C-alpha cells in the first residue's frame, strides 16, 4: 500500500502543480470562461453534469474498448499473415501505410452507408486508426526471433507451426503489447473522431459528439468537463493494459523492469 502511494505521488504532485498554475493563470489574466474555464469551475461542472457525462462516457468507452479489440485482433492477424508470407508483406504493407493517410470524414459517410447509425461504423474508425501500431510492432517482434532459434527447433523436429507457436508467437507478444499501448493512446481520440464523423441515433451520442455540441453552444466549461473524463479514461486504459501485460507476458516485464 505504501509503495503504491509512493508510486503515484510524482504524477499527483505534477498534476496539482499544473492545475494550480492553470487556476492562477485564469485568475490573473482575466481570460473569459468561454475561452478557458478555471479548474474549480470544471470540477463543479463535473459534479453537476455527472449524469449526462456518465451516460455519454459509457457510449464512448464501449467504442474505445471494442474498437481497440478489433484493432488488436486485425492488426495481430495481419502481422502474422505478413510474417508468414513474403508475398503478402509486399502486397499489404504499402496499403496498410496508405490507410493511415485516409481522411476519416471522407470514409465516415461510406461507413454509415454500409452499416447505418449504430456502433459498428465507429468501431471501424477506431480500429482503422489503432491497428497500424499493432501491425508494425508485431511484424517487427515476429521477425526479431534469434535466427538460430528456428535451426534449433528444426533439429528438435519441430514443424513450422510448432516453431511458430513455441518461439515466434510468444516472442512477438511483448512487442504486440507495446503496439497496443500506442494504439490505446490514439484510441480515445479515435473514438472522438469516430463520433464526430459518423452520425448516431442514440439518445446519448458519446463524449466526442457532446464536446462538439457544448463548444457550439458556448458551454465551454462542460466541454472541458467531458474532456477531463476522456483524459482520465485514457490513463485508466493504459494502466489496465500494463496489468494485462504483467499477466500475459510476465517474462518481458521481469527482464525489462517496471512498467510506467
Amino acid at each position: 500500500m505504501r509503495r503504491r502511494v509512493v508510486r503515484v505521488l510524482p504524477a499527483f504532485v505534477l498534476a496539482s502543480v499544473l492545475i494550480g498554475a492553470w487556476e492562477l493563470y485564469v485568475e490573473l489574466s482575466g481570460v473569459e470562461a468561454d475561452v478557458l474555464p478555471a479548474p474549480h469551475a470544471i470540477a463543479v461542472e463535473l459534479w453537476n453534469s455527472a449524469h449526462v457525462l456518465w451516460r455519454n462516457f459509457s457510449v464512448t468507452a464501449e467504442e474505445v474498448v471494442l474498437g481497440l479489440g478489433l484493432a488488436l485482433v486485425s492488426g495481430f492477424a495481419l502481422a502474422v499473415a505478413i510474417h508468414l508470407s513474403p508475398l503478402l508483406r509486399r502486397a499489404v504493407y504499402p496499403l496498410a501505410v496508405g490507410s493511415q493517410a485516409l481522411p476519416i470524414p471522407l470514409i465516415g459517410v461510406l461507413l454509415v452507408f454500409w452499416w447505418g447509425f449504430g456502433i459498428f461504423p465507429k468501431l471501424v474508425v477506431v480500429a482503422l486508426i489503432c491497428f497500424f501500431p499493432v501491425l508494425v510492432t508485431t511484424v517487427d517482434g515476429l521477425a526479431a526471433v534469434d535466427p538460430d532459434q528456428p535451426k534449433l527447433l528444426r533439429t528438435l523436429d519441430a514443424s513450422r507451426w510448432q516453431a511458430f507457436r513455441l518461439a515466434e508467437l510468444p516472442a512477438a507478444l511483448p512487442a504486440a503489447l507495446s503496439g497496443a499501448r500506442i494504439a490505446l493512446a490514439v484510441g480515445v481520440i479515435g473514438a472522438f473522431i469516430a463520433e464526430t464523423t459518423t452520425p448516431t441515433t442514440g439518445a446519448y451520442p458519446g463524449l466526442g459528439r457532446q464536446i462538439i455540441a457544448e463548444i457550439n453552444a458556448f458551454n465551454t466549461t462542460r466541454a472541458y468537463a467531458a474532456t477531463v473524463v476522456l483524459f482520465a479514461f485514457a490513463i485508466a486504459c493504459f494502466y489496465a493494459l500494463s496489468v494485462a501485460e504483467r499477466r500475459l507476458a510476465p517474462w518481458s516485464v521481469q527482464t525489462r523492469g517496471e512498467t510506467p
Partner: protein
Amino acid sequence: MNLWGNAREGSEVPSDLQSRPQPTTRRRIAAEEIVLEDVSFAFPGRGRSVQALDGLSLRAAHGELLAVVGPSGCGKSTLLELLCGLRTPDRGSIACPPAVLMPQRDLLLPWLSALDNAGLALRIAGFSRAQARARAGELFAELGLEGFERARPHELSGGMRQRVAFLRTLLSGKQVLCLDEPFGALDAITRGEMQEWLAGTLVREPRTVVLVTHDVEEAILLADRVVVLSPRPGLAVAQLEVELERPRGRTDTDVTALRELALDALAGGGRG
C-alpha cells in the same frame, strides 16, 4: 532414484530409460558411425561465394566424442549444420544418424521455466506438459539442477543455462549431439566446472558427440579424438587420438603434450 545405475554397471542401455517413452526414435544400440567424405560447402554471396568447407573428410565412431578445433571462421558451425541436416553439401557425402544441435547461445525460451525448456523436445514430439515435466524432472537432480525447475532462464546463471540447454538437447532422444562451443561464453572457472560436468554426464548417458570449440585444452580434456581444421576453407590438418584415462587434469603431462601438438597443427594450418 538412480536412473544411471545400469549404465554404471556397464550394460548397454539403462533399462530405466528404455522403459520410458522416447520422443523420437528409441536409443540406437547398433553402432552407427558418422562418415563425411570429401565434403564441400560454400555460402552463396554477392558476386563471390564464400567457401566454408573444401573437401573435408572425417569419421566418428558410435559413442565417440569427437572434438573439432580450428580458428574462427573455418566452417566449424557449418560442419555441425551439415551433420544436423540443416544444410546440404555442395559436394561429397555425409552419413550421420539423427543429430541434434546445441547452438553456442543457449536459446532458452524466456517465457518457459527451466523444466519446460528442458522438456521442449518432448512437447514437440507430442507428449503432454505433465509427461514432459515428469521426464525432464527426473534428470534435473542427476544433472545438478535440482531446485531450479520453476526458475525462468533470466534467473539462472550462465552455467545453469547451459546445463538446461544441454538437457534439452539430450532429451531430444537423438544419438548424435552437435555441441557448438557450448562453454564459449562462460568465465574460466565456470567453464572448467562445466567441462567436468559434461564429461560426467556423458559417462552416465553415452552418446556420439561432435564438440566444436576454439579451446584446444577443452578439446583434449573431453574428447576421444581431436580434429584440427585449417582456416577457411576448412580442411582437416591433423587428427589426434586422445587415449588418456578420465578424469583428465589440465596440468597432466600427457594433456599438455597433446595440447602442444594440436597448437602446432593449428599454427601450421594458419601458415598454409
